[in-house]
């Protein structure tokens, strides 16, 4: 079989699709924001403005790729590829449909968490190497935010893992045949979603790059394709969090049989992407200390409580109590 899990053809197809979709999300976001704010959005280039992304790509590749003389060149060049790399690596364990995926790993959930934690280096190194006070402030905020929200992200997933009894994302989807985990794990879902937005530092949690306060935060000094990698990396992050939400809480590819599994996966993921974009248009940005207090004093106890209750429930069901 050429199309089974991990064959070179399917790896290539998944890589290509993920990157193209992430780039197209830039256009999708601008059009949807336009729709919700009663304006048009980009509609000049191509049908419905679809070629806007191509135009932007040509522009960004042709731009001067400048490294400031005061920057630390080694870290400055290293930082943008890290975010692209870790997020694309996370997609390797995502089960898109039966037989579609890159690897079928028994430590899939842990792998995603490991990659998410490595993603913090991209923004930290980028801000630190820029040798600019706004960039440094941005990356300090990013570091604190990502390290904190990683904790709740991990704990909120453990409820799902406890119900399935496996770290394998494919097993997690199959375990939801009788009912999606959104019902027993609703609190886990909410915490994971909030932490996921904070991890991908999207609005409303884009505190590391808050334009009104610190210019552009950690990528103030970046230009050309280096900035492009940070930019596409953010959309890749949105795509990753949406597909993880679908896999962990909404039954992955499962759905009524009149549509093929991959279509269900794409539909559910698109719903969450649209939701994230709506969230961006609807909610103002909190203050930095509010975000931290909210995380440590509210989300952490709540996620621990959720885990404890789930654990007790699993034990009770197995007759161990």
């Amino acid at each position, binding site marked *: 079989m050429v199309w089974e899990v991990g064959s070179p053809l399917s790896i290539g197809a998944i890589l290509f699709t993920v990157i193209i979709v992430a780039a197209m999300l830039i256009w999708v976001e601008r059009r949807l924001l336009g729709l919700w704010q009663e304006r048009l959005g980009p509609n000049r280039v191509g049908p419905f403005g679809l070629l806007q992304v191509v135009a932007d790509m040509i522009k960004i590749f042709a731009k001067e790729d400048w490294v400031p003389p005061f920057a630390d060149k080694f870290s400055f060049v290293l930082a943008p590829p890290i975010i692209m790399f870790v997020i694309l690596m996370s997609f390797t364990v995502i089960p898109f449909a039966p037989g579609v995926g890159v690897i079928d*790993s028994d430590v899939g959930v842990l792998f995603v*968490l490991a990659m998410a934690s490595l993603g913090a280096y991209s923004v930290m190194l980028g801000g630190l190497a820029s040798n600019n006070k706004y960039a440094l402030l941005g990356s300090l905020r990013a570091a604190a935010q990502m390290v904190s929200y990683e904790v709740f992200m991990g704990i909120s997933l453990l409820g799902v893992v406890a119900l399935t009894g496996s770290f394998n994302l494919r097993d997690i989807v199959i375990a939801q045949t009788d009912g999606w985990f959104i019902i027993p794990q609703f609190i886990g879902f909410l915490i994971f979603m909030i932490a996921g937005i904070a991890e991908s530092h999207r609005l409303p949690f884009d505190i590391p790059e808050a334009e009104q306060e610190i210019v552009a935060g950690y990528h103030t000094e970046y230009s050309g394709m280096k900035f492009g990698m940070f930019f596409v990396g953010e959309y890749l992050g949105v795509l990753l969090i949406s597909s993880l939400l679908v896999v962990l809480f909404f039954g992955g590819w499962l759905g009524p049989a009149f549509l093929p599994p991959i279509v269900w996966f794409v539909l559910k993921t698109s719903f969450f992407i649209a939701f994230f974009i709506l969230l961006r248009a609807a909610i103002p940005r909190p203050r930095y200390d509010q975000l931290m207090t909210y995380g440590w004093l509210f989300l952490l106890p709540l996620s621990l409580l959720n885990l404890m209750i789930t654990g007790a429930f699993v034990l009770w069901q197995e007759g161990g109590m």
Partner: protein
Amino acid sequence: MTMLFYLAGAVALISTISVTISTNVVHALVYLIISLLAVAVIFFVLGAPFAAMLEAIVYAGAIMVLFLFAMMMLNLGQATENEEKAWLRPQLWVGPGLLILALLVQLVSVLVTQRVDVVPVEVGVHELSVLLFGPWLLAVELASMLLLAGLIAAYHLAKR
């Protein structure tokens, strides 16, 4: 798999050497992260995927982030780099070099004389947790107490 093992080992060695000889603190940290990730790959190849993931999450992903975080606050510049350069004079390396050489000779002789064929057996997450929360429960609880003590100490220090 054997190829992967030696490749990861080589990466770990080179990056660890780079940690010691690089004068820029941030570069040294980046090399240290690479070294830890290489060790994670070695764990994976040896059949311990859970340990590999924990190495990546805890060491490379959390502890090193805190190191880098502290480094950002320190504002280390050219002065520190010069200081580091001064510490890296060749004559300082004679003593440690001799000691390392002794260890290396020992290691090579052990490898040559005692051939142990280790066949990597994959230990899954389930088997590992059965062991951890079965016979080794006391050790796990002791470790958690140690971590709690550290947490309380950090809280106390931050309050002052």
